[in-house]
């Protein structure tokens, strides 16, 4: 009787709590289905804002935890002892139930925490942590977020260079021929375009189109570029141009690509128009923000492509007032190189040398400048010119103006003279020590050392090998190495080294000749 009276208020509260839970639960369910169909009860809305189910669950648990131990006082003394012994198990059991039920209730929150952590880890470039967080999410995805979770997992794998897993994950959520998760379609489209560039096929293009159609790019520019690439792969130049035009509206940099495309289509007017548009946009940007370095460089580039070198120079020189940095100087140097390239054959040696010297002043490390200098010197091999030039560069050397270039030029000019080997070796060695990255200096040094009067083949080979290290894009350097190896009689090594390069540059006559020379020699 006493026990009943004691428990009665708790039971009543328990029933009320359950009733509230049921009513608000129903209302929430209706709201989820159709908000308009749900009855408008502002107090319900207020109640539903509270984590009501959690509160009620906690309340009921508390009731249970209070009433059960107290019940022991209503038992007989013998049973009460038994009951008290059982309380540890009861509390432990209650805790376990509370933990399990609570976990079920807060499961979404726990998994979202993993989601946030995975994103944060990936943001911090802690990819292993990111992938481990995502792994847990994939195992227990938050409600209605299976695809998002899988996408996150795929991205984490892609960032960890586990492309195969990433591709499989993306293929699962964005399959061919079935609409899947839009960002995953985007991922697959980007992947496909890379794949297509390495091994083109019609199926890949069809697949690319499918994924592009179903993707949702936040970055519209990227979407347009991918479409442009697709159209280009399908030789649909009109569509490519249209798409690039749209992309250029988002980023004027694409005017350059558009110009190139039009130039290839022999539509010079359209090409020029594209560049004019670029000039217009970048000029406006500079007007608004004169310190905008990137726009300034691009504007100069557009001017240069339009062969308006004076304006380009003026733009960049004006830019030097804001930025005295290497980017601006390099841009200006490139401009002078372009000017040099644009000079006709009629221009004399000094006229041609002038932009190169200016370029050299601005960018000591410009490879393009050295290549052109070498070309220029090779075409002016008469003795008087050489002497005159040597004198100019010696004066430059004394004045301390660009010693690398001066050493390089003097060494090169000396190397042309059969008696100038030692001078050439010394100067080119100096150039190389001042700027070890000049592959051309190595190569020239090697040529000098390998000359018949020098015959220092071992050293020459060493420098020639240094020159070609990582320089596959410069096949001329391989010719020098090949010739040195042939001179040494090492025909096998010559063939081994030159063959892969020759297959890559079949048009390079000197390379092919050197290779065939080695092959003939080895047969003998």
């Amino acid at each position, binding site marked *: 009787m006493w026990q009943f009276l004691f428990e009665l208020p708790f039971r009543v509260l328990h029933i009320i709590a359950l009733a509230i839970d049921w009513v608000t639960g129903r209302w929430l369910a209706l709201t989820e289905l159709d908000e308009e169909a749900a009855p408008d009860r502002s107090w319900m809305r207020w109640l539903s804002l509270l984590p009501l189910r959690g509160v009620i669950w906690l309340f009921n648990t508390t009731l249970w935890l209070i009433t059960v131990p107290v019940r022991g006082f209503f038992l007989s003394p013998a049973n009460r002892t038994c009951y008290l012994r059982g309380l540890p198990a009861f509390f432990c059991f209650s805790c376990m139930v509370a933990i399990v039920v609570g976990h079920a209730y807060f499961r979404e929150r726990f998994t979202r925490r993993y989601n946030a952590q995975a994103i944060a880890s990936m943001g911090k470039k802690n990819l292993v*942590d990111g992938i481990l967080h995502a792994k847990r999410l994939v195992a227990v995805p938050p409600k209605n977020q299976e695809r998002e979770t899988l996408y996150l997992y795929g991205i984490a794998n892609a960032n960890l260079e586990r492309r195969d897993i990433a591709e*499989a994950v993306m293929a699962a959520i964005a399959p061919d021929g079935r609409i899947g998760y839009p960002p995953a379609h985007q991922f697959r489209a980007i992947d496909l375009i890379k794949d297509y560039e390495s091994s083109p096929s019609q199926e890949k293009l069809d697949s690319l189109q499918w994924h592009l159609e179903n993707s949702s790019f936040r970055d519209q520019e990227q979407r347009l570029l991918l479409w442009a690439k697709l159209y280009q792969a399908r030789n649909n130049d009109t569509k490519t141009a249209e798409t690039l035009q749209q992309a250029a509206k988002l980023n004027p940099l694409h005017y350059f690509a558009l110009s190139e495309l039009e130039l290839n289509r022999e539509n010079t007017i359209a090409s020029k128009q594209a560049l004019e548009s670029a000039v217009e946009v970048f000029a406006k940007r500079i007007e608004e923000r004169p310190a905008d370095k990137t726009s300034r460089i691009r504007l100069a580039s557009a001017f240069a492509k339009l062969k308006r070198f004076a304006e380009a120079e003026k733009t960049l020189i004006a830019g030097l007032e804001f930025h005295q940095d290497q980017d601006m100087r390099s841009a200006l140097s490139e401009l002078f190189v372009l000017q040099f390239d644009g000079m006709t054959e009629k221009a004399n040696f000094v006229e041609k040398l002038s932009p190169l010297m200016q370029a050299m002043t601005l960018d000591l490390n410009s490879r393009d400048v050295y290549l052109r200098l070498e070309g220029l010197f090779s075409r002016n091999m008469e003795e008087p010119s050489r002497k005159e030039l040597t004198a100019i560069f010696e004066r430059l050397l004394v004045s301390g103006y660009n010693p690398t270039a001066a050493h390089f030029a003097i060494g090169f000019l000396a190397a042309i003279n059969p008696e100038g080997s030692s001078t050439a070796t010394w100067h080119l060695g100096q150039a190389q020590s001042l700027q070890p990255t000049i592959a051309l200096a190595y190569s020239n040094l090697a040529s000098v050392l390998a000359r018949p009067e020098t015959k220092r083949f071992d050293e020459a080979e060493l420098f020639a090998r240094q020159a070609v290290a990582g320089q596959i894009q410069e096949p001329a350097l391989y010719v020098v190495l090949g010739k040195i190896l042939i001179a040494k009689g090492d025909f096998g090594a010559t063939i081994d080294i030159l063959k892969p390069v020759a297959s890559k540059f079949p048009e390079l006559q000197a390379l092919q000749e050197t290779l065939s020379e080695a092959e003939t020699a080895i047969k003998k």
Partner: protein
Amino acid sequence: MKGLILFIIATLAAVGALLLEYLRYASFAQGSWIWVGAALVVAGALLWTRRAELLQRTLVNERLQRRERVQGDPSSIVLLGVLGLTLAFIAQLAHSPFLGWLTFLYLLGMAVYGEFGKPGIVAIRPILILLIFLNPVPIACEPWATLALQSTSTSMTTVMLDFLRIFFFSEGNVLGLISEQKLFPELFQGVSWLFPTVFIVIAWGIHYRYGWIRTTVNVFQAVGWVIVGNATGATILLANKQYGGNWLDFPSVVALWDYVKFVAILFFTWSGDQFLASTLRSTFNESNLVEGQDSEAVPLLPLRWKLSGIHYGLVIGLFLVCGLSIRLSGYYRAILPSQTLAERIELPSQIDSWTVEQLDSPETPAWLPAGSSVRSWVLERDGKKMILEVATSTTTPKPYLYSWLWTGWRLEKAPEFLDRDEADGKPMMAQLARLPGEVCTVLALGTDQYGSPLIANSPLELGSKLPGVVQENLLRALGKMPFKPEKRNLKIPLSCTVSLFVVSSRQLDSEMLEELKQCWTAITAWVNKDVLELTSR
């Protein structure tokens, strides 16, 4: 008493060999000899405490019998004897140590019944049940029961870790800490203390004469506390590691913690029993009284028999004939200590143009039974990579895919057996998947400790055309199947599982599958060669 001793001798003659096998088997299955020994001692002690009651009941029984002049029924003797003989015969034929143990218990009960009658059986019935419990669950269920229990325990650990805001990742039943970027398989090698706890709970119930309802409820709550205890233990150790502790680095601390866990499990089981006894007092106490009541009023059956020396001799002779005939038919008995087998296998650096490289520090996965060892090799050719794993065990190994399922892989489709036209030794091919982009193709072949392919024992039987254990032994006894493994296609003795697998992001194409099969043929030839060489030493 003379009759009882003679009966026990007969029993041992019939199933003694199997009992020895059982002891070896059960001890490893349970983890240690100590456990089985302790269980037998406890059972003996319980029997000893009931000796007075046994004799007293017998006297009461005899008095009542004399008063009511009830005679024994000879037909019941024949019936019980034939049943015992049949059980012993089947146990021998199936070569099942488990059935041998059950037969032993049956015959023991029969002997007690013969000597003390129904009251004797009533007195020792709980102890017999306890001893039956010593028999591990059938091999087809045990791994899956362990898997399910560990799975529940791991789930509970994940729940607790979530509440403690500890970030973790999982590979099936094994959890790891993200902060450590490492799995902790040593904490998830199967729920510990399950059998000892349940045994103690039953023994406790027998000692205090709890009714079967109370004991059953206690067994169930003990299983629950074992799961909770294991989960909490793992959580505490992981939390300690997460927050900079180093308990996990000291095996002694982990072992000590394990014992603390055991004590806690027993305490909460006892506490739970007390709570339920006070709350459900009517059910528990009524149940408690059942045995006490029947001690006063045992309904006596007229079945009471005494055998003469000739009868005993006859029974002994029958059992001996039965036991010896089966024994003489000659089973293949494997004696090689298989835990060293995998360690002794030497593969060349190149097999069939596959470069073979042994993986460093071969660690035996914790979930494999004691006495197991695993070694792995990587095989590479033209940028294609496969992994060869040879696992050997002193007991019947787990089914083929057990370790895969333990680490979270699931079957994509039903495994199939290759080369169906061969008599046996067919490798099984299975497609497994875990997380998206994780696919594994496994080719596996396992044998039990007698060299039989592990197919009938596997829960993944999948309509195998091979005969089951009983059928296979019967066929062997009748000469329809070869006894010795030398006559088999695959000559790997003892329990040994050879697996060749490829983990990839997509399902293997037909070309790669063909390569896998070819590689399998080359590899098994080498493994067989190695194993044969070792066994002939």
